[in-house]
């Protein structure tokens, strides 16, 4: 296990900022704390009944790139993470007489229907469905399986509405919302005192949603969006290297006052084109360049090196964020089933939001699900392609519950009402 000097990245005390909703609980006087002791907890004897748990995964493999793409999404993106999670669950299960199996369904063409796939799995007795699918599909599936008691784990849709107005009681969100991602980036900008943002917004609905999240995060952390422009120059990041430079795409950054350009390009069409091409020399972040995310091949702290090695042996490639998210979904089921010694979703689903459920997931802190919107609380890494730059929550961002709740929508602001 490594642990490079994160502590050295923290802001000086004088630079600390508190977010609007946070309470400061700094007890300054006592020099020595006290140990809290819990009542003796007799560990029940290991279960004698073997328990077999099937976990479903519905995903849509990325189409192969039309020409050479150095970092094309692999066909088994997400699936390989599920396989590692199942293997991890089974290693533990050897000692608890629990076995786990994966029932994966690839939606290979546009016509394949996620709802039909989900219903098939449920009919086969699968009670845990991991979805690596867009928000509309998550909603359609979760509504279709509502009366079956199935637990849906969203590993692919970062849409805030799934944690807000469109939240569902049977859905748990393993990946961070866009709000959490952009809050993580905003905290880093605050630490660096880069307060002026030039926001560049792509043409898709996802890009617009990301831009909304950036605006909200800027408000929350008192950053200023000093300029905002739509990207109208097409997928230049996918143009060939010998394509002539598109002069107008460079000129449109002229005459602006900003510290960092934030690109909102969830499809990866043009965001990488912006770095090193702005008229003024400014760093770029957002969906490309300096990125808030769940996982990166450069992460090695908190035991992540072991996960990276294990994954590479299993899949013969590097672990990607979607692989990690699906792995965390499988491990969520494994951790809860191990603790409760049953795979009955009527027991497991309420347990996931209890205070004693925690998921260790290579982030240095225990992760847990927020009761108000079923979002997994998590540290978010801020990375550039070759290095870990920082980790949110940044030091100095405090919260009465846990610093992890400085990221994303907090209880007082939530618009989620489970029915």
């Amino acid at each position, binding site marked *: 296990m490594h642990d490079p000097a994160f502590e050295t990245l923290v802001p000086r005390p004088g630079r600390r900022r508190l977010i609007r909703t946070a309470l400061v609980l700094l007890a300054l006087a006592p020099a020595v704390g006290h*140990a809290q002791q819990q009542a003796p907890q007799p560990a029940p004897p*290991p279960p004698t009944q073997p328990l077999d748990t099937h976990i479903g995964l519905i995903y849509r493999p990325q189409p192969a790139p039309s020409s050479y793409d150095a970092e094309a999404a692999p066909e088994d993106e997400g699936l390989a993470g599920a396989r590692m999670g199942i293997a*991890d669950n089974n290693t533990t299960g050897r000692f608890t007489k629990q076995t786990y199996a994966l029932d994966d369904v690839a939606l290979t063409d546009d016509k394949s229907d996620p709802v039909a796939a989900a219903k098939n799995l449920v009919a086969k007795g699968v009670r845990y469905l991991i979805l690596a699918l867009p928000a509309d599909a998550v909603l359609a599936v979760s509504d279709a399986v509502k009366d079956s008691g199935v637990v849906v784990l969203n590993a692919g849709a970062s849409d805030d509405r799934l944690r807000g107005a469109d939240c569902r009681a049977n859905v748990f969100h393993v990946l961070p919302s866009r709000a959490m991602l952009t809050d993580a980036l905003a905290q880093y900008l605050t630490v660096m005192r880069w307060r002026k943002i030039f926001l560049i917004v792509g043409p898709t609905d996802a890009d617009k949603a990301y831009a909304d999240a950036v605006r909200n995060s800027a408000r929350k952390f008192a950053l200023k969006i000093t300029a905002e422009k739509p990207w109208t120059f097409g997928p230049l990041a996918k143009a060939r290297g010998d394509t002539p430079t598109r002069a107008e795409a460079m000129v449109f950054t002229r005459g602006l006052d900003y510290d960092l350009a934030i690109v909102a390009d969830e499809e990866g069409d043009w965001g990488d084109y912006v770095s090193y091409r702005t008229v003024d020399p400014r760093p770029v972040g957002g969906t490309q360049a300096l990125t808030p995310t769940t996982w990166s091949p450069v992460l090695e702290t908190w035991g992540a090196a*072991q996960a990276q*090695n294990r994954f590479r042996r299993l899949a013969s490639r590097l672990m990607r964020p979607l692989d990690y998210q699906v792995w965390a979904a499988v491990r969520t089921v494994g951790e809860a089933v191990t603790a409760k010694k049953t795979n009955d979703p009527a027991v497991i689903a309420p347990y996931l939001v209890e205070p004693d459920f925690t998921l260790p997931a290579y982030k240095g*802190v225990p992760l847990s699900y927020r009761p108000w919107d079923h979002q997994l609380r998590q540290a978010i890494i801020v990375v550039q392609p070759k290095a870990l730059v920082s980790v949110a929550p940044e030091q100095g961002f405090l919260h009465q519950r846990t610093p992890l709740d400085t990221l994303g929508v907090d209880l007082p602001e939530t618009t989620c009402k489970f029915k």
Partner: protein
Amino acid sequence: MSGRVEAGLSVFALGAWFALSGPAAAYTAYITNEKGNSVSVIDTATMAVTGTWKVGRRPRGVTVSKDGKELFVCASDDDRIDVLDTSSGKVVRSLRSGPDPEQFILDASGNPLYVANEDDSQVTIIDIEKNKVLAEVPVGVEPEGMGLSPDGKILVNTSETTNMAHFIDTKTFQVIDNVLVDARPRFAEFTADGKFLWVSAEVGGTVSVIDVAQHRVIKKITFKIPSVNDEAIQPVGIRITKDGSKAFVALGPANRVAVIDAKSYELEKYLPVGQRVWQLAFTPDQKMLFTTNGTSNDVSVIDVTAEKVVKSIPVGLLPWGVAISPN
């Protein structure tokens, strides 16, 4: 608290410590530097680094032979254990440890060596004289902590992702029982009477005390430090005095070592040490405790009786493990 501040204070404290304790016996402490690929050698009497020895890649677990003549170092990224001659500081041979050895413990008789293979979900048992693998025991995901009962009959391994303490019979090399503990168990330490096993949970933030005869958790110790986030309290290394009176627990990025009454489980105090403190080792006379502080690249020395940090010693890059010679 930074190592530097401590070092400033320690000159004074050290004087007081000598006055109280008289001259200390001279032992040798060996520190593995995970990113330095080296071992720092410290004279415990002068508390000065007397040498830096090159070893294999990513050295973590470290232990000394019973006679003090050989030093064993897990070279995790080289999938081997380096054996150094402590008189020359040279690697004289390497043991077939299996992949990614992280921590190990030497049998009370001096042989065999029990090794946790972190990447491979197994414990490897090696005859160190014949360099022969005696057994490979499948355990949970990411095995790390290794504890041996004082009578040598029970080996305990903790698996960081499976969150269990696996009890292994050292005669049959079979897993005889598994006890679930909190998230990411890093270290296992038996009390000297063999009745209790303490297991730290780094992510869970707790120490479980397990009744060895019954294989069940009888106490969970939790920690609260004013002005430190609960998430930063990550227990790793544990050492308990031979008389069973005091336990010391390294709390990782909380940058403190907790001192606990090992009978009542009451917390006595938190000692500020360097940054990201992980592993601990007593001198054989149990007068001093050495801690490895990964982020501040130093070692803190604690006076066990006075419960005070008396010195901070800069070592190599990312100090991980510590072992102290018996003589």
